[in-house]
């Protein structure tokens, strides 16, 4: 019974990662590709770690799995935000159909200082 649950989580996790990769190939510009990576790839990793935690019952496995999950869910949005900020500063071309870009307007009005 427990193998069925672990296999279910493993297959779903790898399918979410496959969907993230399809999104990286298919979506039109950098910012939308980041939508796919931030959400689908994180959920894929979390589901696969759940499969390991179900199958191996020991506290050190659970501790390490929880550590990896916490790293992933708290660091991925920060890294994505830094990359998208850098991409927007570098005038990376956007796809079609953009309705508004208020960040660009504010950059033209006031000079933003970037400190290290």
């Amino acid at each position, binding site marked *: 019974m427990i*193998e069925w649950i672990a296999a279910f989580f493993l297959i779903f996790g*790898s399918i979410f990662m496959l969907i993230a*990769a399809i999104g990286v190939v298919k979506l039109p510009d*950098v910012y939308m*590709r*980041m939508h796919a990576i931030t959400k689908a790839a994180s959920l894929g990793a979390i589901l696969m770690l759940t499969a390991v935690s179900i199958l191996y019952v020991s506290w050190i496995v659970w501790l390490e799995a929880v550590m990896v999950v916490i*790293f992933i869910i708290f660091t991925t949005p920060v890294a994505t935000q830094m990359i998208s900020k*850098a991409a927007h500063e570098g005038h990376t071309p956007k796809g079609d159909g953009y309705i508004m870009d208020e960040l660009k307007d504010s950059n033209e009005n006031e000079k933003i200082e970037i400190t290290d």
Partner: protein
Amino acid sequence: MIEITNSPVLTVAIYISFFSLTISLFMGMYRLLIGPTLPDRMIVLDLIASLSIGLIITYILATGQTIYLNVAVAIALLVFMGNIAFAKFLIRRIKK
């Protein structure tokens, strides 16, 4: 080479997982090669980190060696640092 565990259900799941993760790696490699700008390539780095965490976990399930979870912890930490350093480098290069 790999000792698959006894349960047939889990064996099939491990094969499916290895297959789809490998396909995903090739897709990421495609975007890495043709990606028009540098940020495109940087986000593929993030994707490949998640995929290698997935590959390590599938390997753990295939062999039963849970010691490899340490590698997943290290990858999850190092890739965050790598992304932040890349973004800082990109911003500094733009400012010049």
